[in-house]
């Protein structure tokens, strides 16, 4: 069975097939997954619970903010999200399945914008266009959409690329043999097979846009996220902020479930056990040139231009010594946080594959924290911490407890960035494999370690990279949950930027970029080699 996409059998499972995946078996993996879900979902659920608290009626300005914010967020998600999906999917297809000048270089250069926080891009473009006069000023709705598309397409690129790379040559060749033109193979085989990856990456980009505060605020837009902070900071009404956040979280939940449901009706298991080089399309001189220009433009606007601008500012006011300690803190925290979150996300994704119905839905609920601003998730975590303290379980936020709370905040905020790609990777695992392993007597942990993980390895690598860089860039949760005298690069950059000292903010911002670079290079190389039979 090379491909059962759209076959009637996969749409309506026969009893025999349904029997292959029993409801969540009570085993170690299932228990671990339940725990992981609770850990990741708790702060977001706390936010919703606090928003619903009966003694806290919403103020009149709340509904105005909510309405305007919803319109703004919708517009930005449509413009920026669609842009990110188009750019990311096209770039992934080009470097995975086509041959053109510079392809090998673009393969990893294309990931670079991932290292740039949206708010840094916003500052950079404002600074650059201001310095050149206001002829081409990046501002307003279109300015923000441009920055999101240019900065967030790597989410789609990475996930789609993982999907393209692990595609079966047989499926593509079978299509060719059956007389499909190259274009048809792209549109009717390669793209549909990569759909879970593209959808997962696109969902991440959309949620990232919904959660973004810095860039939207900088451009003076009213979105749900800026409305949250307007209610909180300007009106001094944190409970209204929580109510708007709850709407954002619930919308994300609906979005996740619908996306999953739409995908869930089709099955994507594919692939043979024999792996060969993927056939690449040789693009002609014109096509190859256009492809190179397209990729170069993405790298230029998403990373190179802002990087050069930051570099210029950092040269004007260099202070690398002062940020040495924050640099070390950032690396340590990002590595620890990424591993912690990845483990939880892995448990959730694997269990979600095996679960059905409500169990499955509740697992995806763990991912909704990704759509809310980090400050809100941190507020949920703080509220739960307050409850635990009042109950006498714990004391104050000592350094080690604060660090634990911070890692928890990261997991609550970013588990989706892990669950999405891993789940997309596992989607390609044929159920027969799991069943075979079971027949051969492998227990749940062994199946997890020796079947699920290796199959999802490219996706795991992508997820680890995304998580590391996400945490490197993360600001609000880090600000509010960290121990005393513990600064990260993002904290330092924010301290200067919020004080409107962009010159001084340039060095730590530049270092965030550079620190993200090494894992990006390592992991994209790993990704390219992860295709079985290509070592």
């Amino acid at each position, binding site marked *: 069975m090379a491909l059962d996409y759209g076959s009637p059998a996969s749409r309506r499972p026969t009893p025999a097939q349904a029997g292959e995946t029993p409801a969540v078996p009570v085993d170690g993996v299932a228990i671990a997954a339940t725990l992981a879900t609770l850990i990741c979902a708790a702060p977001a659920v706390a936010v919703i619970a606090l928003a619903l608290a009966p003694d806290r009626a919403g103020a009149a300005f709340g509904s105005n903010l909510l309405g305007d914010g919803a319109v703004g967020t919708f517009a930005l998600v449509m413009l920026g999200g669609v842009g990110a999906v188009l750019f990311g999917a096209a770039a992934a297809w080009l470097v995975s399945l086509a041959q053109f000048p510079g392809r090998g270089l673009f393969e990893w250069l294309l990931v670079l914008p991932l290292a740039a926080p949206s708010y840094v891009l916003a500052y950079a473009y404002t600074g650059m266009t201001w310095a050149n006069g206001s002829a081409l000023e990046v501002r307003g709705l279109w300015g923000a959409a441009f920055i999101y598309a240019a900065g967030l397409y790597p989410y789609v690129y990475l996930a789609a690329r993982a999907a393209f790379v692990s595609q079966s040559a047989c499926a593509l060749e079978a299509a060719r043999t059956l007389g499909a033109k190259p274009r048809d193979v792209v549109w009717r085989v390669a793209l549909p097979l990569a759909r879970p990856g593209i959808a997962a990456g696109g969902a991440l980009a959309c949620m990232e846009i919904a959660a973004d505060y810095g860039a939207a605020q900088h451009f003076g837009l009213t979105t749900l996220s800026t409305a949250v902070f307007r209610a909180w900071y300007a009106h001094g009404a944190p409970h209204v902020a929580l109510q708007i956040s709850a709407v954002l979280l619930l919308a994300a939940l609906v979005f996740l479930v619908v996306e999953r449901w739409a995908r869930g009706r089709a099955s994507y298991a594919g692939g043979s056990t024999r792996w060969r080089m993927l056939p690449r399309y040789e693009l002609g001189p014109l096509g190859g040139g256009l492809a190179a220009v397209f990729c170069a433009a993405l790298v230029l606007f998403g990373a190179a231009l802002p990087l050069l601008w930051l570099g210029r500012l950092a040269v004007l006011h260099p202070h690398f010594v002062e940020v040495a300690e924050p640099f070390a803190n950032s690396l340590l925290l990002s590595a620890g946080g990424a*591993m912690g979150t990845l483990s939880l996300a892995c448990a959730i994704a694997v269990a979600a594959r095996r679960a059905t119905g409500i169990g499955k839905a509740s697992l995806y609920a763990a991912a909704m924290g990704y759509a809310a601003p980090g400050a809100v998730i941190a507020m949920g975590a703080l509220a739960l911490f307050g409850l635990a303290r009042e109950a006498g379980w714990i004391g104050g936020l000592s350094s080690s407890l604060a660090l634990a709370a911070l890692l928890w905040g990261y997991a609550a905020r970013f588990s989706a960035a892990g669950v999405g790609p891993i789940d997309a990777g596992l989607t390609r695992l044929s159920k027969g494999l799991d069943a075979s392993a079971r027949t051969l007597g492998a227990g749940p942990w062994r199946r997890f370690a020796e079947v699920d993980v290796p199959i999802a390895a490219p996706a795991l690598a992508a997820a680890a990279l995304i998580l590391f860089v996400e945490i490197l860039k993360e600001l609000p949760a880090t600000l509010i949950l960290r121990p005393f005298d513990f600064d990260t690069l993002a904290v330092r950059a924010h301290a200067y930027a919020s*004080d409107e000292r962009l*010159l001084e903010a340039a060095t730590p911002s530049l270092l965030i970029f550079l620190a993200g670079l090494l894992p990006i290079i390592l992991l994209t190389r790993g990704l390219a080699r992860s295709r079985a039979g290509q070592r």
Partner: protein
Amino acid sequence: MLNRRSFTLLGASAALAACGQNNAKDGTGADADYVNVYTARHYDADRQLYAAFEEATGVRVRALTGSAEQLLERIRAEGDATEADLFISADAGNLWRVKDAGLFQNVTTPALEQGVPAHLRDPDGAFWGFTKRARVIVYRKDAVQPAQLASYDDLANPRFRNQIVMRSSTNTYQLSTLASRIERLGAENARQWAAGVRANFVRDPQGSDTDQIKAVAAGEAQATLVNHYYLVRLMKSEDPAEREAANRVSLVFPDQAGAGTHINISGGGVIANAKRRDRAVQFLEFLVSDAAQNVIAPLNTEFPIRPTITPAPELAALGAFKEENIPLDALGRHQAEAARIFEEVGWR
């Protein structure tokens, strides 16, 4: 595979725990003498102040920086287990919120009373100012005569239609500016003023105070309202383009013929549940002492809290000006109404 992963995880958590312990050792060892500060100010000058305090007293200042609103939520969640002894922030409006939440304790000592003029501190002693900033009008020199912008009222004058840029009203500086007007002239007057200024906008509010100055310098608008030190900083920026921009504009201290220019403070207060209250009071007194004021004056471009301290030369060059004199807690009391008015007139 699983084992290798578990080991890596174990290693990472051990490393993180170790680094947490280091921090704990620094602070909570038996003989360590320290005070914990939650601060929404991020200036490098503040770190020098901490060092000066440690040198003078042997007491280490441990800082947690963050936005005022978020630090407030952390203090609230920590309750009586909080590690915070002192809360420091720019803007009396931010400090008032902490007071309003019942998280400050009132403190009055002779040193504080002598060090801080009455209009730069909370009437109950919940918080005390240690630097001063003025909300000034910045205009483009080749477009406007300073006499045309002698008052905040002029920003609402229809002659400046499509000539004004403003920062978002989410910002506390804007809220405090309007709150001071509500205190002096009433809500209706404040609404009319805000609506008049709003009608003069050339673009929706976006960006920082510095961005407003740059927009004026670039010719997008003729005037804006900012805290004085943002312009002073541009004047001495390391970026030639910024110095060039600062050259094209100038500032007015508004309402010199009337109630005086709106001023605000950076200040601090002692947390209600402070575990090291004496140390906290000691640090607060240090902040307003001549020693600390003389450290901060040349470094920062804010005004010293007392006229007897010599400000930075760039500030001295701006000359003396008449200050608005209202009870400082008014900025907090009228904050919610100010936010409502901004919302109603569409000044986002």
